[in-house]
């Protein structure tokens, strides 16, 4: 079952084509990784899907419905949720309040907010102001905000960036469990993380998708090795 279909999506900044005629589709409950060199357009693509930016051309179809013209908050309400590479939390509010805000949109009751905090291991910080928390915990709050929206499609932008190895393994487990109920797309640079989690890998370079397939295939792909993976 196709949950998202992107058709001929393009976006330029001045003369620079950040996203160049991109088309792909995501299968429901499949975990997809989006990888590629820096500046390939991965975050821009996510910005276009979630309407942080308006596409110059193309269509976005979510669960069979054309959502191309919808505004960011309506897209989020429909169930397309994303996290940010550079954390974007509500700094002066508590962890609970940070999760309550999206919970109001999805009508998630307080018990479920508790459960999300417990699952992520952050319930003891419930009433702490987010700005004062250590980085690793803040990253989990960022994820919690996305979960409290009860997403159908969750797009994670470099969720492991800045995390130490054990935290990464912990995150892989959390996302793996999540992947059984939510369709996931993950942008990441940590190949161990990607190959441990993804069922499908898409590779972007210079605004285009240059390869797509199972992780093992991509790892062997010559072009991908040349521009992105390096020695391994």
């Amino acid at each position, binding site marked *: 079952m196709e949950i998202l279909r992107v058709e001929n999506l393009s976006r330029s900044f001045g003369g620079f084509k950040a996203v160049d005629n991109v088309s792909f589709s995501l299968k429901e409950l499949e975990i997809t990784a989006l990888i590629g060199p820096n500046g*390939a357009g991965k975050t821009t693509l996510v910005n276009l899907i979630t309407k942080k930016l308006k596409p110059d051309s193309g269509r976005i179809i979510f669960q069979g419905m054309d959502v191309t013209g919808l505004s960011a908050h309506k897209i989020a309400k429909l169930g397309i949720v994303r996290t940010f590479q550079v954390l974007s939390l509500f700094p002066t509010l508590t962890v609970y309040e940070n999760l309550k805000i999206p919970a109001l949109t999805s009508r998630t009751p307080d018990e479920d907010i508790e459960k999300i905090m417990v699952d992520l291991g952050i319930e003891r910080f419930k009433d702490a102001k987010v700005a004062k928390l250590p980085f690793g915990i803040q990253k989990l709050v960022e994820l919690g905000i996305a979960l409290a929206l009860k997403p159908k499609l969750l797009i994670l932008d470099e969720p492991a960036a*800045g*995390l130490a190895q054990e935290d990464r393994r912990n995150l892989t487990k959390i996302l793996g469990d999540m992947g059984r109920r939510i369709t996931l797309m993950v942008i990441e640079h940590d*190949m161990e993380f990607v190959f441990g989690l993804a069922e499908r890998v898409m590779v972007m370079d210079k605004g285009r998708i240059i390869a797509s397939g199972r992780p093992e295939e991509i790892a062997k792909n010559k072009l991908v090795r040349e521009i992105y993976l390096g020695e391994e």
Partner: protein
Amino acid sequence: MLKIRNLNAYYGNLQVLFNINLEVDRGDIVAVLGPNGAGKTTLLKAIINVEVTKYGEVEFEGTNITSLPTHKIAKLGVHYVPDYGGLLPGMTVLDNLRLAAGSKTPPINKLKDFYPEIANLLERRADALSGGERKIVSIVRSILTNPKLLLLDEPSEGMSPIMVDKTVKLLKRLNEEREFTILWVEPGAKLKKVIEVADKIIVLTAGRIVYVGEAERAKEEIDKIKEYVFVRG
């Protein structure tokens, strides 16, 4: 070159670093590893006197820099590259680099020597770069300031694997050619690569130093190091 003695650091009332003693010799690459929240960034900030309340002594090339204002420490040749890059957003990459090189136009060919990719980024505005691109530019920028001591805060975080390789090789090469001394902070994901190029490894956990080792010994004890780094303090 850098001597830190009995450093205790606080954010407000919260103590983050406990009794740190550390030495960096000229020409060395010293890696500081540790889990999140261990205080690695705090250590770098404490050296340049930013945002942190500290007690103890910091000495650079014989000068006591403990209470010196940040810009004076920078003038002495200590350059800090934060994890978000620290570029001036409204200006182009080229202008950012010009500022770093001291208003002389930096030799573009030389830049391509560091990272070939940089040629494409010169005309872009610094705030229009992707996260990884920003990191690459901030590293080039720091090189252009001709620092004596480079403090790198998670420089390879968010870079594609191939760029991480290039960055590590570049820094090793510069360290050899120009005697850049580097204090390099990493969260541990790229442990192996960093240990290969470092002269000294320090592991910081929950604000305390739990391991110090010279290069060869560190390579043998890599599993022990992994245990220190990966077990949260």
